[in-house]
C-alpha cells in the first residue's frame, strides 16, 4: 500500500529540489554542456591541430557519411569493423560477466563464512584495483610463458600465445575478470531478498536445482537481470581498459569502439569525427537500453 503514496509529504517539493540542486548543477555543467557540445561538433570538421583547428567548418552529415562509407568501412581499423568487433566483445563479455556473476551469487546464496568472503573479496578487487596496475599484471598473466600458460600446461593443455593468437578472447577474458564483481554484487543482493520460504516451497514440491532456479529465483531477479544487462552493455561499449593490454591490436583485431574513438580523437585529433562516433554509440546504447526495458515491462505484463 505505501507504494500508492507517491506524493508523500516526507519531503516537501522545496526540500527535494534543494537536495537535487547540486545534482542538477553538476549535470548541467559537466554532463549536459559537454554532451551538447559533442553533438554539435559532430557536424563540423573540428580538429585539435591543423587548419581545421583554427577555423572549423560546418559540414553537415559528412562525418557520419564517412563512417558509413560501405566501400572501406569493414577494413581493419575502420569504423564498421570496429562496430562488429565491439558487438562480439560486448556479447561475449555480457554473457561472461552476467553468467559468472550470477553463478557465484547463486553458489554462495545463503552461505556465509571464510570461503565466501575470500571469493567475494578477490572478485571485487579485480573490479576496483586501478587499471594502470592491472594492465601490467595481465600482460604478464597472458604472456606465452605467463601464469595462465603455466597453469594450462600443468593440466596438459595447449599453451597459446594469447595476445597474438587470440587477442579478442584475451580481452574478453580480461573484461569478464574485471567486471564480474558488479553482477555478482547485484545478484547477490537480489537473491538475499528472496524469502527462504519460496525456495523451501519448491524443495517440498520436489523441484531440482535447475527448476528451482528457473521457476523461483529467476522471476524474482528479473528486474536486476535487466539492470545488469543494461549497465554492463553500456559500460562494455565504452570500456577502454583493454587498450592497455593490446592497444587495439594486433592488426586491429581488438579495435573496439572506445579504442577506435580514442585513436581518432587522440592520435589524429579529429574531434568532429570522434564526436560523430560518440553520438552513434550513444544512439546504439539508447536503443539497447530501450529494448531491455521494453522486454522487462512486457515480461512483467505477462506475469
Amino acid at each position, binding site marked *: 500500500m505505501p507504494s500508492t503514496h507517491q506524493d508523500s509529504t516526507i519531503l516537501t517539493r522545496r526540500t527535494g529540489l534543494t537536495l537535487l540542486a547540486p545534482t542538477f548543477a553538476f549535470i548541467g555543467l559537466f554532463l549536459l554542456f559537454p554532451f551538447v557540445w559533442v553533438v554539435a561538433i559532430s557536424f563540423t570538421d573540428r580538429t*585539435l*591541430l591543423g587548419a581545421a583547428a*583554427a577555423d572549423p567548418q560546418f559540414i553537415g552529415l559528412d562525418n557520419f557519411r564517412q563512417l558509413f562509407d560501405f*566501400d572501406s568501412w569493414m577494413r581493419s581499423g575502420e569504423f564498421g569493423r570496429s562496430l562488429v568487433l565491439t558487438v562480439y566483445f560486448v556479447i561475449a563479455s555480457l554473457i561472461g560477466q552476467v553468467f559468472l556473476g550470477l553463478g557465484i551469487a547463486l553458489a554462495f546464496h545463503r552461505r556465509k563464512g571464510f570461503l565466501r568472503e575470500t571469493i567475494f573479496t578477490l572478485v571485487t578487487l579485480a573490479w576496483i584495483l586501478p587499471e594502470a596496475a592491472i594492465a601490467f599484471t595481465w*600482460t604478464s598473466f597472458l604472456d606465452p610463458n605467463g601464469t595462465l600458460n603455466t597453469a594450462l600446461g600443468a593440466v596438459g593443455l595447449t599453451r597459446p600465445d594469447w595476445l*597474438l593468437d587470440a587477442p579478442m578472447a584475451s580481452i574478453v577474458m580480461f573484461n569478464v575478470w574485471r567486471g564480474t564483481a558488479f553482477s555478482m554484487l547485484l545478484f547477490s543482493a537480489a537473491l538475499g531478498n528472496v524469502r527462504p520460504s519460496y525456495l523451501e516451497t519448491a524443495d517440498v514440491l520436489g523441484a531440482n536445482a535447475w527448476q528451482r532456479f528457473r521457476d523461483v529465483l529467476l522471476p524474482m531477479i528479473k528486474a536486476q537481470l535487466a539492470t545488469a544487462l543494461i549497465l554492463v552493455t553500456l559500460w562494455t561499449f565504452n570500456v577502454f581498459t583493454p587498450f592497455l593490454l*593490446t592497444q587495439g*591490436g594486433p592488426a*586491429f583485431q581488438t579495435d573496439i569502439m572506445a579504442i577506435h574513438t580514442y585513436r581518432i580523437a587522440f592520435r*589524429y585529433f579529429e574531434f568532429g569525427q570522434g564526436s560523430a562516433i560518440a553520438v552513434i554509440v550513444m544512439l546504439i546504447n539508447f536503443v539497447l537500453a530501450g529494448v531491455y526495458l521494453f522486454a522487462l515491462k512486457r515480461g512483467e505484463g505477462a506475469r
Partner: protein
Amino acid sequence: MNARMAKWFGALAVLSFAAAPVFAQGSLSVICRCVEGGVNAEMVQWLKDDVFPAFEAHKAEQGETVTLELVEFGGSDEALQQQYALDLSVGTGPDVLAFDGFWTPDFVEAGYIQPLDQVAGDVVWAWDGWDHISEGLRELIGFQGEVYGLGTGTDVRMIFYRKDLLEEAGLEVPWQPESWEELLADARQVRDALDIAPLQLNAGTAMGEATTMQGWFMALLGTGVHMYDFDEGVWIGEHPGILQALELYDTVYNEEGLGDERMQLVSQGRDQSFGSFRDGETAMLVEGDWFWRSVMAPGSEWEPAAGRDEVVGWAKMPAVEPGAGYAGHDFVSISGGTGFALNPNTADGELAWELLSFMFSYDMQMAYQEIQPRIRIRDDVPVTGDPEMSRMAEELLAVSTVRPQLPAYARISEAAQRMTERVVSGEMSPQEAMEAYADTLESIVGADNVVRAD
C-alpha cells in the same frame, strides 16, 4: 622576530618585488617530457644543473633577476602534444616548449605557434649560433621556410647486429650487406644455422612512429621512393617501390619466417624485440642510434650480458641494390629531431629567445654532451666519448633524409604503419594493402594530392 612580524615583512618583500621595474627581473618556465630520476632524466639534469644556474648568473651580471622554472611532464608524447594544443588554443602555457619536429606543421596551421622572429623580434637573426647550424638542420622545427624553434639534435638509423650470432652462423664480421638480396641471404643463413627468426624490421601501429622511422622508411627509401613527392607536392599512394617494400615485409615475416611477427604486432612488442636482441634470439635489428646510446647503454636493462661493445655491431641499411636507394644512394637512413619551440603567448618574447639561444650556446651544448653524448645540431659540438656514435654520424648523415614536414604527416604516417601491419599479419596482400593505403591518403588530403598508379 615573531611569526606575525615575519608575515608582515614577507608581505612587504612581495610588494616591493612586485613594484620593482619590469626590466630588472622576469620569470620563464620551460616544459619538457622529462622527469627527475625518470624519463629523460638527462635533460632535467642538464637544464637544472647547467642551463638554469648559468643563465641566471648571466642575467645577474646584467643586473637582472630571472627566475626559471622547469615543468617536468610525465606523460606520453601524444599526451604532451595534446596538452600543448589545448593550452595554446586558449593562449596559455609555458614559455619554452620541448617540441618534436614533425608536430610543427599541424601547430602552425592551427595558429598555435609563431616563427621565432615574430615572437622575439629581429634580435633572433643576430645570434651567432646560426653560423654553426647547417641549412637543413635549421628547419628541424620549421615549416615552409619559417623557423619556430631549435632542435637539440638529430639521429640516424641502421641495422644493429649480434657479432657473436653472425659468427656462429658462419658470416664474416664486421658485416655489411650491400643489397636486400644479400641481407635476406645472410638472414636465411642465420635462421638455418641457429634456428631463430633473426631479423626484425619494425611494422604495425603498436609502436607508432618507431614503425615509420625504423621500419617503413628504411624499407621504402631503399627502393628509391619517399612517402612524398617534393617536386610535385603530392603524396605517393601507389608506386612499385611501395609494393617492393611491402613484399620485403611479406618475405621476412610471412614467406620465409625470417622475422617474428609477434614482436611487431603485440602492444609491448618493441620491448620484446629489445629483450630478444639482448638475449641473442634476434640477430639483426633495425633501430636508431638511440638504441645504441640509450637503450643498450652499458649497465642498462637491455644491455647484452656479454657487454654492448663486445657483441653488438652495426651496418648501414642497404638499398635494394647499390645505387637504387633514395636520391641514388647505396645505403639509406632517415633522421628526425626534437628540440624546443617558443610559446607565442609568452609575456616576454625577447627574454624567452635569450634563454633558448643560451641553451643552444656552445658551452651549454658541450655541457649536455657530457651528460649524454649524441649528434647535436651545432657543427662545432662533436660527439664526444663514443667513437661509434661519431662514426654513425659521419657515415649515415650523408645518406640520410628527413620526413615531410607537412600537416597531414602524422596521420599518413599512421596509415603507413597500418599498411605494414596489414601485410605482416597476413590480412592483406601487398597489393591490397597499398590500395587501402592510397584510399586512406585520399580521405586525409583529398584525391588531388595523392598519386595513384591508375
